[in-house]
């Protein structure tokens, strides 16, 4: 922390305590505070009370943070505010992203808390037990088979505080106004995610593999980010986005430092947003992680990463946009093509959604590099729309199961509509939303992003994006074909009747996907209020 202050301080002459605008950052404080309390709960409460206490605490924190956010927004300054010595900017986009993150986390936490879909919850009790041993079998099947209730399985309830820590990191990440704060937030959001990826109750090896892959590649990306940060500090003499922007606008220092730093920094950010060609971790991690965590990552990490990308590009690097725009065009195209084309070849539904998320990252990147107010607001809207659709989609995926847990192989989904018409209908709706069919939020999102891009002269990119959407539509359609037009396999999976928690999460996602598709005006207006605060 002292290093942070030292770097953030332009003149080390006199240390003064920074002014802190507590109401503005109260939502973050609530989330991080609740996370700390959650750790204490883990330490002091007996095992059988932890789940209910943690669920209560987590939901309470989310709601309280949401209330604090709403309260602050009623009289927030129109052009935003910075606090903590200018290291955190609480402005229009940040408030929108915070609201989005809190709402999405609510959905994800509901799924994490569910113990009826997978008896005992999707998380293993003791992750350190080696897969394949007797102890592992015991904790998977339940230590006391005589007890029929969910509690007999036990569950790693530390996921709740870990989720809150990750969420807190994400919130800081998309409000960070200097690169060092951003880096710390990046670590705070990443480390819990690495852990949580390895906690799946079923398919332990796959889950652990996912965790290790995510950790190793994530560490690389963090290193890239840090390296870029260091170079930019060398160039601008400050880690503040505003100072970097000023230095880049009028400076005779070596451009090599600037460009190299910029490139490395952006690579680190694109990795988190799973933008191709920095997407390599995405399919494996999405597949291996417990599905509620996949939903959390797919929705919230995407929001946070693109929140960060938007801020860095708009505030820090806007004046150099002619240098990086061409490269970003290329990255967006590569991401869309990789996502759409490789998605065609997938046979696992979670991997398929992962490639879909890579294609969507490409679309989002188009919005992010427009840099106009319309570009920012359309990207924000897209994030909101995409997040809810994804959460609900993973919620449905977690319901389709056979004896070995989730039935994620596509062939197992054949004829699902005959056995569970409602689940099939809901999933069809979500797939159509991902494909961007009108009357879903996905269409409005694509529409606003593409119109922002078109009005800033990016017509070729838009056409490529539309063609990529059409290609991607094929693999969404394939699932619909399987569910509706194919005969069910005789020993196919059954659909678990979801408990209240997962039902709530899916309902939340579906309702918002529909609402944003039919009456998007409110969210569009909200996304369009306020611009990035610089100081």
């Amino acid at each position, binding site marked *: 922390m002292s290093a942070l202050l030292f770097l953030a301080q332009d003149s080390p002459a006199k240390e003064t305590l920074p002014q802190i605008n507590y109401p503005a950052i109260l939502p973050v404080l609530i989330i991080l505070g609740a996370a700390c309390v959650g750790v204490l709960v883990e330490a002091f409460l007996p095992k059988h009370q932890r789940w209910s206490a943690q669920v209560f605490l987590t939901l309470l924190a989310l709601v309280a943070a949401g209330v604090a956010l709403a309260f602050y927004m009623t009289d927030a300054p129109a052009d935003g505010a910075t606090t903590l010595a200018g290291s955190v900017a609480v402005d229009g986009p940040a408030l929108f992203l915070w609201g989005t993150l809190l709402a999405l986390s609510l959905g994800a936490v509901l799924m994490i808390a569910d113990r009826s879909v997978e008896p005992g919850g999707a998380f293993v009790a003791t992750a350190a037990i080696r897969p394949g041993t007797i102890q592992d079998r015991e904790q998977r099947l339940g230590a006391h088979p005589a007890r029929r209730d969910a509690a007999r399985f036990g569950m790693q309830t530390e996921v709740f505080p870990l989720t809150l820590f990750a969420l807190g990191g994400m919130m800081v990440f998309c409000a960070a106004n200097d690169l060092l704060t951003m880096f710390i937030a990046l670590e705070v959001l990443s480390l819990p995610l690495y852990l949580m990826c390895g906690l799946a109750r079923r398919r332990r090896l796959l889950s652990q593999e996912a965790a290790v892959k995510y950790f190793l590649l994530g560490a690389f990306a963090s290193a890239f980010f840090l390296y870029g940060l260091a170079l930019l500090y060398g160039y601008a003499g400050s880690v503040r986005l505003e100072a970097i922007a000023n230095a880049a606008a009028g400076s005779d220092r070596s451009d090599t430092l600037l460009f190299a730093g910029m490139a490395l920094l952006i690579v680190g950010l694109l990795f988190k947003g799973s933008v191709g060609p920095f997407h390599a971790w995405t399919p494996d991690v999405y597949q291996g992680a417990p599905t509620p965590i996949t939903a959390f990552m797919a929705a919230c990490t995407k929001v946070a990463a693109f929140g960060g990308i938007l801020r860095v590009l708009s505030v820090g690097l806007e004046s150099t946009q002619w240098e990086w725009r061409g490269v970003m065009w290329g990255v967006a195209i590569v991401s869309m093509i990789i996502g759409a084309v490789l998605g065609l070849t997938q046979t696992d539904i979670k991997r398929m959604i992962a490639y879909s998320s890579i294609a969507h990252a490409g679309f989002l990147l188009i919005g992010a590099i427009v840099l106009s107010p319309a570009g920012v607001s359309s990207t924000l809207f897209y994030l909101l729309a995409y997040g809810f659709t994804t959460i609900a989609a993973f919620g449905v995926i977690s319901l389709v199961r056979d004896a070995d847990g989730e039935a994620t192989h596509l062939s197992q989904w054949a004829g699902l509509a*005959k056995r569970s018409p409602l689940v099939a209908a809901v999933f069809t709706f979500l797939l*159509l939303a991902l*494909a961007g*069919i*009108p*009357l879903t939020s996905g*269409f*409005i999102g*694509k*529409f*606003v992003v*593409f*119109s922002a891009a*078109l*009005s800033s002269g990016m*017509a070729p990119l*838009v*056409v490529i994006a*539309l*063609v990529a*959407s*059409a290609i991607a*539509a*094929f693999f969404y*359609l*394939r699932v619909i*074909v399987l569910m*509706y*037009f*194919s005969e069910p396999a005789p020993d196919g999976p059954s659909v678990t009747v979801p408990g209240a928690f997962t039902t709530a999460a899916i309902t939340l996602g579906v309702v918002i996907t529909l609402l944003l598709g039919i*009456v*998007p*005006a409110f969210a*569009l*207006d909200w996304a*369009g209020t306020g611009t990035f605060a610089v100081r």
Partner: protein
Amino acid sequence: MLEPASSSSGGAALLVALLLIPLVGAIVVAFLRDNDRLAKQVALGFSIVEFVVMVISWISYDPSGARMQQAFSVDWIPTLGVHLSFGIDGIALVMIAALALLVPVIIGAGWTDKLPADRSAGAFLSLILLQQAITVGAFAATDVFVFYVLFEVMLIPMYFLIGQYGGARRQYAAVKFFLYSFLGGMIMLASAIGAYVQAADTLGEGTFDWATLVQVVSNAPLENQIWIFLGFFLAFAVKAPLVPLHTWLPDAAAEAPITVSVILIGVLDKVGTFGFLRYLLPMTPDASKTLAPLVLIMGVAGVIYGALLATGQRDMKRLLAYVSIAHFGFIALGIFAFSAQSETGAVSYMLNHSISTGMLILVVGMVIARGGSSLIADYGGLAKITPALAGVFLVAGLASLSLPGTNSFISEFLVLVGSYGNEPVYTIIATVGMIFAALYILWLYQRIFHGPVRGNALVDVTGGPGTAIAPEVGARKAILDLSGREKLVLAPLLVLVLGIGFYPKPVLDVITPTVDATLSSVGISDGGN
């Protein structure tokens, strides 16, 4: 809740009813999954009410009145300048009328159809009515955004209709249909956004209002117009399949249930040619004129190609699909020849094609329902068993090849006469297609209905004792002539084929003012020559 737009000439309630009746019907019928009979009755009821409202709407339509009648507009997404605006002109009216006519007819025609196992009539008819509601909306939309939304959503019921109720290769056909149209729609979205951005640049704020966009885009530089034209054109050319974007139609038509084919070929595909008239010509007049040769080549190629392939088909349903491809080429020729006569001919062809081809598909469906096969080679001499069916088939076939006295004749004649003045070469080539039309229709009729009774569909080769009526091969299967229900279903179409054939004035009266308005927006106002 509904605030009539200032341009409204009253009667908005009629259009609202036209939009809502099938929608409400779809929802109600969707709940009748357990009772097939009741579902059919209710669906038929809704479709007949829709037909009646359509008739009232037609009567209250004033051909000499405002361009858009029965119009209304409600705010939808103010941030984007999107309004739920609907209104009908003469062209939209005849297409909505064709749909309102065909839906009760196909519900009646499919009354005894066997659905695949586990599928209920309620779900099927609900999709049909939903399709009707969305398609009416697409014809009536006067906001480009709303049109685009409905244009895309239109795919979903049809996708399920083909994919769930179709033939052996229905999965392939449904996905192919969806992807072709969706890709076209996506490209059109780029153009729609382009038009929106053009309006934002010109007016200071974006809008999707059709009339405003026509104003703005038609005054835009030619280069912009060409890009906007190409996006819309691609989507419409996939929909009204012009060669070479047609390959989805034979598959879709062959795999879809007969009744669905009637809707698909009879009305849905006309959204494409409708789009030419409503969006391409007024919005991008300069580009339309510049790129007319492209469309004309595609149209004429379709006429010849469709005719040749129709002649060579062995499957009746595929044959009809290729016939339609030829007809759509013909309509495109009429539209892009830019004369009042050819244009009027093309629009009336859109209606008459719905009636005559719809009838032909239904009759072919009745043949297939009797023989259980759609291969032409499985039939022969059917006229001896079912003379009434043969008679109706012949009338529908002759209407399809535009014999004088049938409804299509006047349309085809107008297209040829009108096009010859501006585009003699293309017109002469297209006329060759008419010769083929006689060939493939009459040859089809001859193979199925004339000669000795033969073919696997009609004759049981293994033979049954004592029932051998046909001397040369096995026993003739028990096949009945048209039932009372089938006669009832075909009667209105038959009446219209002959009625419009002899007295086309009511149709032409409705169409002509809208066609003149469309042409004057392209800069041709002399009323043809």
